[in-house]
């Protein structure tokens, strides 16, 4: 069976309808989709206001690592049918979806939610994408904290 796997870095708007359709098979009955968006106001930690974020990626490696995230999902949840992992880059304003992880399966109770959750957690660990936050007080790179282990 040919299971659809989408992984891409894009500068275009994320189209959830289109991405979902691309990972829906005749046997699909459920999809769990995660999207992240630019927060204009953050309350947790140092409360602050964001004017926009500027995303950049090491594109060929990022796409390869997104493929790896999809492969890891399939290994852990073999019932998953379609997977989409898409990161938007460039200058992105509050309320804009920036990243999408979607997983489909025949039923909702065999791991589809857990798979999507795993996907976004993993993307934020190993996919080489960075964002700089531009606010009223200047600009600052957002700091990640995960150090990949050998083989990751």
């Amino acid at each position: 069976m040919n299971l659809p796997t989408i992984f891409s870095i894009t500068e275009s708007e994320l189209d959830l309808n289109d991405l979902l359709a691309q990972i829906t098979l005749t046997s699909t009955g459920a999809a769990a989709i995660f999207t992240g968006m630019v927060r204009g106001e953050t309350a947790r930690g140092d409360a602050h206001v964001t004017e926009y974020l500027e995303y950049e990626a090491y594109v060929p490696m990022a796409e390869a690592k997104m493929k790896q995230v999809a492969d890891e999902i399939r290994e852990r949840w073999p019932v998953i049918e379609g997977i989409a992992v898409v990161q938007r880059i460039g200058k992105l304003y509050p309320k804009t979806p920036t990243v999408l992880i979607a997983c489909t399966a025949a039923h909702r109770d065999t791991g589809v939610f857990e798979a999507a959750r795993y996907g976004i957690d993993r993307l934020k660990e190993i996919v080489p994408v960075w964002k700089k936050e531009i606010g009223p007080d200047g600009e600052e790179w957002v700091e990640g904290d995960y150090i990949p282990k050998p083989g990751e």
Partner: protein
Amino acid sequence: MNHIKLLFFATIRDRAGTKSLEMDIPTDLTIQGLKEKLSTDYPNLKESMKSVLITINREYAFDDAVVPPSAEIALFPPVSGG
């Protein structure tokens, strides 16, 4: 000597002042050795070398890895996408 390509991203690029450069390195140079060389050749990068992530041909690499011929080496801070 090996000819390699270096790519810099995010904070590391800001400090390097360039997105990429090419250089010739000894054939048995390790990632650890490369970091030391960069700290010497580009003093601006010295501080960054403590917490930098490094990849060889798009896979994460660690201090004792030897840099292969024609490698594409990238240097960047921990990722922060999403």
